[in-house]
């Protein structure tokens, strides 16, 4: 790239359930890049986007889009077709990570540990009868269990079921966010998030951030209301557990073929095992998100890291 001011286009908003979170993340990225001397535009992914990109491309696109169309790989596929450099994983990897049951399987196949789970479509309950499917789940999964939409983030539609009677309600709640749901064993332990960045020397795991929600559950409100969750960065876990957490994050990043940045959510149990829960190709970058906290804990400036990631994306595209 020449000496001219680099130009980034931050995409944020969209029509996913996580629109508001995306707008918050996008503004943070835009502010950080602006402070690093970038020219930054921020816009919605709407009908004018592709013609806009065709007319004059920015040096790089930062898709700060959470939820469907942002993380399911569709938009990334179109950016690749238009040969626009962008930050983050390619569409194939994004699609794998977006589907939680698929991601769990790939991580498990690569040697990772992940809670036992089963993915069920809403049609399964209709065809086989909810009472018998629920009975089968109760027989196979000792309580508590976690029920969540198979796709999507920000803990929307996620329930921890502690009593048998609550299972049906949790399933219904998950299905309001999508047609597939994941039921998995609840692992007791310390909830941590481990960010991974790759600035050119290979993927690097950031310090684990421990999450301690006041309510006991890291739900939507605990995630996006400052004060509702206490974070520890680095996490208050043993050095053995910290190593395993980093290994788990890197394993997931590599197993799914992710690029530039990711965040893996996991539980550290009493035996210091790191249980993979899910991976995000576009980690939240809001005021209350864990990746920015991990960067600060690693004595890194957000702006310089974001700028380096953007430069990396440009470099990858030219390579």
């Amino acid at each position, binding site marked *: 790239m020449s000496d001219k001011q680099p130009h980034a286009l931050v995409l944020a*908003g*969209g*029509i*996913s*359930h*996580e*629109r*508001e*979170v995306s*707008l918050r993340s996008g503004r943070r990225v835009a502010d950080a890049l602006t402070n690093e001397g970038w020219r930054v535009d921020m816009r*919605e992914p*709407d009908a004018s986007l592709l013609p806009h990109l065709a007319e004059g491309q920015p040096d790089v696109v930062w898709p700060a889009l959470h939820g469907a169309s942002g993380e399911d790989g569709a938009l990334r596929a179109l950016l690749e077709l238009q040969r626009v450099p962008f930050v983050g994983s390619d569409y194939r990897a994004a699609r794998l990570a977006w589907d939680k049951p698929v991601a769990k399987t790939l991580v498990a196949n690569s040697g990772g540990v992940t809670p036992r789970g089963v993915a069920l479509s*809403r049609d399964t*309950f*209709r065809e086989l009868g*909810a*009472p018998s499917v*629920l009975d089968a789940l109760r027989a196979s999964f000792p309580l508590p269990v976690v029920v969540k939409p198979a796709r999507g983030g*920000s803990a*929307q*539609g996620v329930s921890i079921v502690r009593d048998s*009677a609550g*299972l*049906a*309600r949790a*399933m*219904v*709640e998950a*299905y*309001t*966010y999508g047609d597939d749901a994941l039921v998995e064993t609840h692992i007791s332990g310390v909830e941590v998030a481990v960010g991974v960045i790759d600035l050119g020397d290979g993927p690097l795991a950031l310090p684990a*951030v*421990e999450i*301690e929600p*006041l309510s006991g559950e890291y*739900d*939507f*409100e605990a995630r*996006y*209301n*400052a*004060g*509702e*969750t*206490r*974070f*520890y*960065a680095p996490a*208050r876990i043993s050095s053995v557990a910290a190593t395993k957490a980093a290994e788990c994050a890197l394993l997931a990043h590599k197993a799914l073929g992710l690029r530039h940045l990711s965040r893996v959510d996991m539980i550290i149990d009493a035996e210091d095992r790191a249980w993979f829960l899910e991976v995000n190709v576009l980690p939240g970058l809001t*005021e*209350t998100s864990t990746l920015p*906290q991990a960067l*600060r*804990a690693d*004595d890194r400036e957000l702006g310089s890291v974001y700028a380096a990631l953007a430069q990396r994306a440009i470099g990858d595209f030219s390579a």
Partner: protein
Amino acid sequence: MSQTAGSRGNNLDPWYDSYAERTSGLAASEVRALFAVASRPEVVSLAGGMPYVSALPNDLIRTAFDEVMTSQGPTALQYGSGQGVPALRERILEVMAEEKIRASVDDIVTTTGSQQAIDLVAKLFLDPGDVVLAEAPSYVGAIGVFRSYQARIVHVAMDADGLIPEALREAISAQRAAGRTIKFLYTIPNFHNPAGVTLSADRRTEIVEIARQNGILVVEDNPYGLLYFDEAPPPPLRSIDPDGVIYLGSFSKTLAPGFRVGWAVAPHAIKEKLVLAAESAILSPSSFNQLVVNRYLETANWRAQIETFRGVYRERKTAMLSSLREFLPELTWTDPAGGFYVWVTMPDELDAKQMLPRAVTELVAYTPGTAFFADGQGRNAMRLSFCYPTPENIRVGVRRLANVVGRELALLDAFAGSGSLRDTEPDRHVISPPPNLG
């Protein structure tokens, strides 16, 4: 030291433990986050209550602006009286005369929208634990204010003719038997938000009499009274008992909410305190905005403009009801004679809040019924607004809503007999749409 979370941890808000207890409901919620999607043009929003200000000719307002700046510039840009601009208060008398309210200019306090008037009244009267009686359901913005003063909101049943007098008597008796202090009845007699119903003339007299007998002040909120479709509603409660009613009016619906000009009419002693409370809160309402509204009322044919609004909203209500009849005949709804809202009741097993994510996926939004209750009621209800979307979009929105309801019923049918499928906890946080959502 950077803001990292060390061994003591960091909750990202160092003042978290300092907030007043009354702020506990002021937090982001999953439902409110969903409303962010409703601002996208692909989504038909039946959620918000934005007036259709595009029906207001720009020239009328621009002329009023220019004239104010030309003839009253320094006054418009200066602090004003805490009670409001006298000339505007004169004009407000004319507006209220349309609804058969007689008052003195001195009885009126102009406020920053009638929302501020609700806040001032609550500030004057409510101590923590005091009871406010309100219709079931009630205006979400008022519930938020009363909660912020830590009042106990007791809902009183209503039907197609509005608040039920017998239910009011029972509520008063029950609260007094429980040793609680009732401070006032908050009521929206005309084209109720969110229920869409209007209090009948007979009941107005009876409700005022019940309040008088029991020594309970009435707060009458009437932002929609002039926006009737065919016939004007019965005269306001204030016209029956000027000494026992605080009346709240607004230009937000009959002109434009961007001015943030409303007013309160109160018995003399209360009015005096309202002025002092207003000065303490904001010194004075915007002189500029009051003078522009005053000039508009002075020079424009505002009655004709209100007639234009009536026509717009009448057409949209018709579109809403015909769409409901066509696409959702299995549901029940109110038939408003004016205003902005239809209250839709679904089968008991459906939960409008739980269903909202699916609705957003289907590109339609509404406000779940629980937003309008302080006690967890309203799960199987929703408020649909017809004020902002075009008749065509209303039809599209209701058709999409029918898909949502159909899929939700199919889902619940699949889980029939599997135990309770509903969350029974009252909403912990604000779940109403933001005011600038169409």
